[in-house]
Structure formats: C-alpha cells, structure tokens
C-alpha cells in the first residue's frame, strides 16, 4: 500500500501551548482518512430511503441540520436532497448500497480524499470557534444530534456536534482538503489565549 498524506500532515503533532492563565482549555485532533461520501437522492422516494436504511442502519435525516447515527456511520443533512455519509471506510454494506441505488436516480460520490475532519473540544472550544463562527453554538441551541454548514474564515464547513470517547463533548468540523491546513492554523492561533493541545491524528 502506498503512503497516504492527510491535508494536515504539514502541521506538527502533538503540540501544546499554554494559555494566558497557564491552562490548556482547548484541544484539536484530526480524524484522518475517514470515508466521506456525498449522497444525493429524492427524499420523497421511499425505495431510496429504505435502501440506505437497510445497508447503513439509519433513516436519512430529513430534518435540516440533523444527524443520524448507526454504528460507526453518520448521515448528516446537507440539503433537502443531499447528505454526507461519514464512516470508517468502504465496507461490505456500503458496496451493497452502491448496487442497491444503481436503479434509481441518485448520486453517490466519494469525497474521502477531498475532505477531512478537525475535532475540537475542551472547556473553551465555543469561544475559540466564536472568533470565526457566526452561528449560535450555545448548548441550548446546538446540541447532540445537530449539525450545521457555515463559513469559517472563508472556508465552507460542516460542523457536527460530537462526543469524543476519550475527551467528552466535541465538535467535528468537516473541511475541504485545500482549506484544511489554513483553517487548523487559524484555529490554533485563535486558541492562543486559552491554551491548546493538538493531538496526533486519529486514523
């Protein structure tokens, strides 16, 4: 197998930098080499919804800005006829899905090389993100099961409320490959005051 490089491979990990109060109130970790598939199809077509459910185990979310989860796969609402399927990689149920969908009008496109996930957490993650994000991320408004697309520092991103097994509440930022390095550097700089740890990527 040839070597793979994530879009964040030029940023040194791990690194840590204490904040002004000698704390590390924010952490980042790339969730590298995930499977990203863009799915488009007719939400009125029950065969389409059923095919996805059978293979991936969840109902495609029809409510805007929500996420469905089953096992290691997540389905994120992107548009009324568009979703991001985020998972561990191509696997048998996924290959079956490709076959099942072939008869109906749809589009299932591999974007795995074109996107990555920056996970951000820690007690100050909302403030760090608040320096760029115009959305209301207050826990009253943005909670588990929610996602939202927005623009961070001129980059279009998808933000997904997440739970990190090791570190608790977090946010996954799905960003296009070419913007990823710029965005992470920007976020690290934004975390200067609160202090941050950048962990080795999780692959």
């Amino acid at each position, binding site marked *: 197998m040839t070597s793979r490089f994530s879009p964040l491979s030029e940023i040194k990990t791990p690194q840590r930098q204490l904040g002004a109060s000698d704390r590390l109130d924010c952490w980042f970790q790339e969730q590298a080499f995930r499977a990203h598939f863009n799915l488009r199809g007719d939400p009125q077509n029950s065969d389409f919804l059923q095919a996805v459910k059978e293979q991936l185990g969840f109902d495609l979310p029809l409510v805007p800005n929500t996420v469905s989860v089953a096992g290691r796969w997540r389905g994120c609402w992107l548009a009324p006829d568009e979703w991001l399927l985020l998972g561990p990689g191509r696997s048998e149920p996924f290959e079956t899905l490709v076959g099942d969908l072939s008869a109906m009008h749809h589009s299932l496109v591999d974007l795995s090389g074109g996107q990555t996930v920056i996970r951000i957490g820690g007690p100050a993650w909302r403030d760090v993100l608040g320096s760029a994000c115009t959305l209301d991320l207050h826990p009253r408004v943005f909670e588990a099961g929610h996602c*939202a697309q927005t623009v961070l520092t001129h980059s279009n991103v998808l933000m997904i409320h997440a739970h990190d097994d090791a570190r608790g509440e977090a946010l996954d930022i799905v960003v296009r490959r070419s913007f990823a390095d710029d965005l992470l550097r920007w976020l690290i700089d934004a975390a200067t005051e609160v202090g941050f740890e950048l962990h080795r990527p999780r692959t």
Partner: protein
Amino acid sequence: MLQIDCPWCGPRDQDEFQCGGEAHIVRPADPEALSDVQWADYLFNRANTKGAHAEQWCHSGGCRRWFNVVRDTVSYQIADVYLVGDSPPKENP
C-alpha cells in the same frame, strides 16, 4: 449585517448568502423568436424597485439552495421568504 431566514437552515448571517437579484424573471421559451429589443429586456432591464422587492438568494455558505426573499430596499426589513416555484405573497394579505 442582515439576518436571512433560509427556508431550510433557518436564520443565518448575510455573509453566508449570495444575492441573485430580481426574482421571477423567466427565461423565454424560444429565445430565437424574440427581437433584439425583447431579448435585451429579458437580459438587462430590471425594475429597480423602491420598497418591497422580490429577489433570489442562495444559501451558498450552507445548503446551497436558491430561494426567494421579499426585502424592503429602503428599510432592509425582510417581509417574506418562500421557495423557488412558489408565487410571491400578496402585498396586503
């Protein structure tokens, strides 16, 4: 900074949107049948409304859907948001 209520994603900052200008301009079915003047009217001439103005916006920083907005060009207040294909709301419902 306007706040625009995307019919899908809800209220978002104007920065996430792109304005497409006047709404409800339909492309002529047979352009070849039109005179230069008629074609130019479709192509170039716009109402430049003062007051309630129906216009197309795209949530380019979000769901990338186009939709219609009735925006007052004087006060910038947004009176209505509706999907492409729907008729503009009556002025005084």
